């Protein structure tokens, strides 16, 4: 049985429809992440689950019960907010215990719960401090503690890490993951940070304009995106999009890379791996398509060998080289299109030099241009 079931939920503000027929089922113990650019409706969906905003139509069920018209208090959920939303007049202990007190839990039990949570999150020394005396990371822990103490059916996290500095964010990310693994809680987590989504989620729902474009495991969403938006949104640096034309040859399909600047020159051609030949591909022969290649699917061809099956040799001019430490990001122009590649840290490429590369075509994806849907 699903812990949370969202059925055909619509939400309109005035004339704008911010949620369009959203349906979603979350299993007990699952970590689901709603991800998307700002204004995609992910926070509205979160608020609808919490009961902080009524839906226009549709149903929301928690633990099999219809809660669509219940108040937030009646839904047995807890939420961790972006701003933490700690009560400034109460100390940490009171903050954590407030929800239990509202639910008329006896004092002794409340104290037990506070102690348990404080121990879990290592905030016991902070219990008597006011929120204003805490650092950002500490406030974050307290906000989580407040949610954990309640032991609700579902936890909602609304961009909980976005107010932390980069280092702390990574630490807390790990901590949240550990907590989830240890407690087996059901979590719905909103973020616009796709790295957070990739690292934390059991499943990711990518949203745009009030719709769920794709729902799947991080691996599915990353490697098997349904359209150009999902492909471009997940991953950093973004996937490279290269305009191509599909050509059919005797030995299989070939992608001809279009060069807007130099239409007369000999076009670059990338053979489509025969192993991936899809039935659908033939109807796109002669059409313009978009080839999607992730930066890490370019490989520096140190061997200088002839074109092999899983890659095609390219000669490109490096325009910008950005070492990040762990690897090197390389900007280059490929037949008039700016592309970004991720090379190993040992690469000796310098800006202005030519570099030989292979494209791992087995991982590349193809989109059509009108609706930007996936073709292959």
């Amino acid at each position, binding site marked *: 049985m699903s812990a949370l079931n969202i059925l055909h939920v619509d939400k309109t503000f005035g004339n704008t429809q911010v949620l369009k027929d959203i349906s979603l089922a979350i299993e007990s113990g699952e970590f689901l992440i709603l991800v998307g650019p700002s204004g995609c409706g992910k926070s509205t969906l979160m608020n609808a689950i919490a*009961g902080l905003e009524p839906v226009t139509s549709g149903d929301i069920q928690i633990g099999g019960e219809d809660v669509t018209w219940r108040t937030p208090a009646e*839904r047995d959920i807890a*939420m961790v907010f972006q701003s933490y939303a700690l*009560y400034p007049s109460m100390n940490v202990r009171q903050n954590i215990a407030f929800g239990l007190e509202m639910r008329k839990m006896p004092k002794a039990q409340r104290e037990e719960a506070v102690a348990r949570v404080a121990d879990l999150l290592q905030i016991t020394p902070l219990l008597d401090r006011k929120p204003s005396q805490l650092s950002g990371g500490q406030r974050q822990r307290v906000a989580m503690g*407040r949610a954990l103490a*309640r032991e609700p059916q579902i936890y909602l996290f609304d961009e909980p890490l976005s107010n932390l500095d980069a280092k702390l964010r990574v630490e807390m990310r790990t901590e949240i993951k550990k907590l989830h693994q240890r407690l087996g809680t059901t979590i719905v987590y909103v973020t616009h940070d796709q790295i957070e989504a990739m690292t934390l989620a059991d499943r990711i729902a990518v949203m745009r304009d009030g719709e769920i474009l794709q729902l799947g495991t991080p691996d599915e969403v990353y490697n098997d995106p349904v359209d150009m938006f999902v492909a471009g949104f997940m991953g950093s640096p973004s996937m490279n999009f290269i305009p191509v034309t599909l050509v059919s040859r005797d030995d299989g399909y070939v992608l001809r890379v279009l060069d807007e600047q130099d239409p007369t020159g000999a076009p670059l051609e990338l053979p489509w791996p025969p192993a991936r030949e899809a039935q659908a591909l033939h109807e796109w022969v002669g059409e313009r398509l978009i080839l999607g290649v992730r930066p890490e699917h370019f490989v520096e061809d140190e061997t200088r060998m002839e074109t092999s099956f899983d890659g095609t040799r390219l000669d490109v001019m490096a325009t910008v080289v950005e070492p990040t430490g762990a690897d090197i990001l390389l900007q280059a122009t490929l037949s008039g299109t700016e592309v970004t590649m991720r090379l190993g840290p040992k690469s000796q490429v310098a800006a202005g030099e030519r570099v030989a590369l292979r494209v791992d075509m087995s991982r590349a994806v193809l989109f059509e241009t009108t609706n930007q849907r996936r073709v292959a």
Partner: protein
Amino acid sequence: MDNVIRRRTPGARMLRAGLYALLMVMALVYLLPLVVMLLTSLKPLEEIRAGGLLSLPDSLTFAAWLKAWGSACTGTRCEGLSGYFMNSVSIVVPAVAISTLMGALNGYALTKWRFRGANLCFALLLFGCFIPFQVVLMPMAQTLGWLGLASSTSGLVLVHVVYGIAFTTLFFRNYYVSIPDEMIAAAKLDGAGFFRIFWRILLPISGPIITVSVIWQFTQIWNDFLFGVAFAGFGSQPVTVALNNLVNTSTGVKEYNVDMAGALIAALPTLVVYVVAGKYFVRGLTAGSVKG
């Protein structure tokens, strides 16, 4: 002002001295009426008649203060200002308390439970800050009569509450708007209801704005003259009305020292509040008018 390095010429130094001198002179001008009031109230009448507005009293006397408090004539009665001072207190205390509480609840409901029409509600309430009270005098006099509250302290409390709500609502609304909605959402999820959130979450952090509202309402109501003179009876006149009567009582010799002592007595409560909590007073003034 900045901390930028500027050339330190003798001219600049002169300018600086001039600046301080000018500010000091202005300060003296602003202080002058208060000083005059104080000096006059502490002099015997003969000394005042001899002239010397600013001369220190030769023989210091508190007789004028005692008379203004206990036995000066305000109109036909000669019981001093004490009774009227107490009238003012018994008008101010309930009126301030009720209007501040209502303003706080209104501001809370308008900002944290945004319902359809909340903005219209606020706009309608806000206009109460702007009406010239002359427009309401006559109908209010009749209404108070029908309610049996004419000439009574309770009637004045009612009037001050009614026309104070607009300001207190404005104060609290603007304060609560800046408190993150997420905090209220968190409390809702924790299971707290409308009043519980107000008492447990918002009121404990409303200290500054409560102070602003209380001080604003206190000064406004204490200093009110129009409603006092229009609606109060002999038994319920506030101290401002009594002071005006005291000064305008034409029987017998004009006792300027008693007038001044009376003025100081009427001014003292608001002056004390201003000196003690000036910061909040200014905040009320600017909040109540700038954003109004």
